[in-house]
């Protein structure tokens, strides 16, 4: 049981999807309970994982290794360490919330939940896979459910957004595949940990390390997203159904950051160090640029999408600052952003559903009509602007501190000082949004707006608790992460 925990976690949602798919006579009302049951059990398993995880140990845990394609030396190899575990837990939590958020899906309910479960499986697979081929397959599978979820149940120009998402992702992953293949031919292995362990000692070079690094990076940069490869993201976040947006922003974006740490930095520490200034510049540009554009948005979801670009810039900053503290900060930021952005999108979707309005200019005064939603939205906003005691502060401060004090990259201090402005801009657009949406005179148009119901309050409340828990006690995450990031730093030879 213990040794198959990861397989169980990955394939349980898939099994759920198959079950729902193969018994077409299950009534739609039951389908969502089934989906909830499957996601909840995955969540329960990842909680077990959290408790059984040995925080003192180094290296991979819960490993499963079976020969898969002997001719390619490809293995079915799963395992998690401190960097992936929080993301696994986050994904399984967000999946439960995504199911809960989709309670009212009327159109083709069965298919919706099937795709949602497939999505969960593939994302979990990405975080657990330790074999490059397996990793890549999970990475690619994820595109399919997202495409259908956006193009069938989305809003606005949904087909366009879905296609854009697919094209960007596939472009990135095609380059990534090229990188993986070159890596395979250079090392003769598909074992991510072993390749990283052998460090720069790549046996025969099909390609120099630098192009492989950037090929791999391309896939992750699109996913994170790194400015200027982000233009799919606002469209996809805006047009996707709320639950999918939560998954996209909360969980899928983290695949990019995770991949950068696991593949780019771990396998090519030297290259990472050499090109860190470029990546840091992109990170800082992303932070400022995303925030600047957020000011100009009138669509609530689009605004949050751009704020998300800004926040993922901190992840990039932390990763390529290449210090223990900054990597811990980046991991924290991934978890924190997952929680905060998810809550922002949850509350935004509640507001948009009940008022039928997504234009910020026409909203206002909702704090009176929907006080609970307003409170949740504000708390999420406070997290987004990095208020101390929320996870946003813990993550951003750790990232800043680790980056600023990093000795790996020359000139990093300037990057960090510029990035600090991002915090200021975040405060400005968050508060301005709150002012425009929640405050001001009560508008009679929204008098019959319904406040969040019990179901919505439950998951919003859960997010709030977690945001403050991580903010007040960041060690809960840090203690999981720190040994693994220290392992990555060791590869740098620092």
């Amino acid at each position, binding site marked *: 049981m213990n040794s198959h925990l990861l397989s169980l976690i990955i394939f349980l949602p898939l099994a759920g999807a198959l079950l729902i798919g193969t018994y077409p006579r299950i009534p739609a009302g039951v389908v969502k309970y089934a989906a909830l049951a499957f996601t909840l059990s995955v969540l329960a398993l990842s909680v077990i994982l959290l408790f059984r995880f040995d925080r003192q140990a180094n290296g991979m845990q819960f490993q499963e290794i079976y020969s898969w394609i002997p001719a390619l030396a490809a293995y079915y190899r799963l395992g998690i360490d401190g960097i992936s575990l929080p993301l696994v837990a986050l994904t399984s939590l967000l999946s439960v919330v995504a199911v809960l958020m989709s309670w009212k899906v009327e159109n083709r309910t069965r298919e919706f939940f099937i795709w949602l479960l497939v999505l969960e499986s593939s994302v979990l697979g990405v975080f657990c896979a330790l074999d490059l081929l397996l990793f890549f397959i999970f990475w690619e599978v994820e595109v399919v459910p997202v495409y259908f979820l956006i193009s069938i149940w989305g809003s606005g120009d949904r087909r366009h957004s879905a296609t854009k998402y697919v094209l960007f992702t596939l472009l990135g992953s095609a380059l990534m595949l090229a990188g993986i293949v070159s890596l395979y031919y250079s090392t003769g292995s598909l074992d991510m940990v072993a390749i990283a362990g052998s460090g720069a000692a790549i046996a025969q070079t099909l390609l120099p390390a630098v192009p492989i690094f950037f090929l791999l990076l391309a896939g992750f940069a699109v996913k994170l997203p790194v400015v200027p490869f982000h233009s799919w993201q606002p469209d996809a976040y805006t047009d996707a159904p709320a639950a999918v947006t939560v998954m996209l922003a909360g969980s899928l974006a983290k695949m990019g950051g995770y991949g950068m740490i696991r593949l780019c930095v771990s396998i090519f520490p030297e290259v990472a160090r050499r090109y860190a200034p470029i990546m840091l510049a992109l990170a800082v540009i992303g932070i400022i640029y995303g925030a*600047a554009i957020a000011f100009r948005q009138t669509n609530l979801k689009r605004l949050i999408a751009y704020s998300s670009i800004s926040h993922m810039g901190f992840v990039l900053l932390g990763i390529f600052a290449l210090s223990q503290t900054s990597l811990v900060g980046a991991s924290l930021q991934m978890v924190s952003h997952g929680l905060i952005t998810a809550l922002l999108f949850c509350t935004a979707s509640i507001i948009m559903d009940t008022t039928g309005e997504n234009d910020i200019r026409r909203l206002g005064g909702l704090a009176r009509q929907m006080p609970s939603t307003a409170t949740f939205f504000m708390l999420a906003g406070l997290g987004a602007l990095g*208020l101390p005691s929320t996870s946003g*502060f813990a993550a951003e401060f750790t990232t800043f501190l*680790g980056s600023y*004090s990093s000795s790996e990259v020359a000139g990093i201090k300037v990057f960090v000082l510029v990035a600090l402005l991002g915090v*200021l801009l975040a405060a*400005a657009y968050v508060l301005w949004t709150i002012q425009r949406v929640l405050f*001001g*005179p009560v508008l009679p148009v929204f008098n019959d707006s319904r406040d969040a119901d019990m179901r919505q309050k439950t998951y919003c409340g859960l997010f709030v608790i977690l945001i403050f828990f991580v903010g007040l006690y960041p060690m809960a995450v840090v203690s999981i992460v720190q*040994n693994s990031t220290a392992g990555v730093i060791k590869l740098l030879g620092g």
Partner: protein
Amino acid sequence: MHIMSIPSALIWAVWLLPLGAFALISPLIRPFPGKAEPASFISIGAVGISFALSLWILASVLQAPDRQIILHGADWLSISGGPVFNFGLLIDPLSAVMLSVVTSVSLMVQVYSRAYMHSDPSYLRYFALISLFTAAMLGLIVSSNLLSTFAFWELVGLSSYLLIGFWFHRPSAVAAAKKAFLVTRIGDVGFLAALLVLYTKTGTLDITALNSPGVLSAISGGVLTWAALGLFLGAMGKSGQFPLHVWLPDAMEGPTPVSALIHAATMVAAGVFLVARMYPLFQAAPHALTVVAIVGAFSAVFAATMGLVMKDIKRVLAYSTISQLGLMMLGIATGGVWVGIFYLFNHAFFKSLLFLGAGSVNHATGTFDLREMGGLRKKIPWTFAFFVLAAVSLSGIWPLAGFFSKEGVLAAALDKQPVLFGFALLTTFLTAFYIFRVVFLVFFGDYRGSHGPHESSRIMLVPMGLLAVPAVASGWLNANGGFEHFLGDGATHGFWSGFIGALAHPLALFSLLAALLGVFSAYTLYIKRWISPDKVKWFLRSPYAIFTRKYGMDELYENIIARNALYRGVFQAADWTDRVVIGGASAGIASLTTGAGRVLRRFQTGQIQLYAVAAVLGMTAIVLIALVRG
């Protein structure tokens, strides 16, 4: 007299009690709850106990070895191979004094609020937020680590934001709240940057460690100056120093007791407290200290001039607060911790009393507009008495509290920065003038409003009376240098020669003269009207216009920078880039692909034989090439 030293659990309780009150009240908040009296008792009870405990702490610190109590708490963050931040408490005379100031003013203001906020539908939310603020402010004072100081620093900013925007249906209140948060956050970025610099250089953010000479000497002078300036930028934001002062007058949109507590007595003083807290660091960076002095002195005069012309009683008081905070900064920078903190200590009482008085006037008249008041001294005699006492104290007239603290600042400034002394003296004159302008316009002459004025209830008057006691007498604590001894570093200025003796010093005569001149000018203009104020206004019309327009600073920030340079400038450019350049690039690649497809598909004629010809020729060509090259 020996007092039992306070148990450490009770030191924790000082700030945890108001937090507990917040935690108890906040789940009860409903949009329209009706009256919820018990909530206010929870909140007042908590802060009352905190007040008692802080007095006990004050007594205990006097007896503690090194006059310091350091409590280690939990590690907030400890990364293996990285930083460790312990959340602990540092009690020394400075924090003990601040504790008693904050708890006492908070207690009085909360009692007062029970009546003032009586009919507000969001009574519960009010008390929850006041408790949150008190907890955060107390946490800020006692924390032993600059990181937790920063955390609480931001949390007081949050509660200030929520309280300024308390009436969130008013667009002006919400805008003011946002402005307050953002302007102070500009300072906070400096604070944060200073934390990064200090940590990177020293590996710690522990206040005691950072202030130790060993650690300080390890940092090079330039870096230390920048770090100190970063901290001071934070202090400037919180304490409304030029050029980050613009939020404070707007913050008067909040309920008046909030202004009294947060925007007069406590939170705005946090900047002064921070400089005092890190004083050894500032001392090691003399250039930074000079900047502190200059900014303080300039803000003092600068804000006082705007205070002269405001028509809203609370705005006059707000500018007065900025001005007084400037003097505190000047005091710390020139005279050391005790000078500034002593000023802060006295100021907290008389300024909050002034605000509570203004609230009481507002209850009586239904307005804050000076033009709709007048002749109220008979209608609301108690308020009048308290207000005048506080005004005299603010003006720095012997023997009230303000005199003693102001003398400290003036003496220190004269000693170290004679030019800035001139600024301070000018501020003394202006202060006396504008506050008595208010007194005369509100309480003398004929009533110009339409409301039927009535004295406020006892729940409001009692706290005012209680605050009037320290407003009058708190300065006497240093009549013989007692306060200086308690907080100071042992250096004496030879100025203090007793309660009466202080008057003998020529400097005291100068400052008294300046203050009395201010009062007299106001008397001339607003009581006797020997010279009509309108004539003065016309005669000095250009400075008057500048003052009423607040030197164009609001215009500069809101219109020129925020609206035009940023929103319509940089942000729009970024948005344009995103839509046209980056969005255009991806759309361009897409249309290039479809365009190519549109052209190339013409080769797909459906003629299978054409395809076959192409295949055969192609294959032949490939084989031929292979043969030729092989």
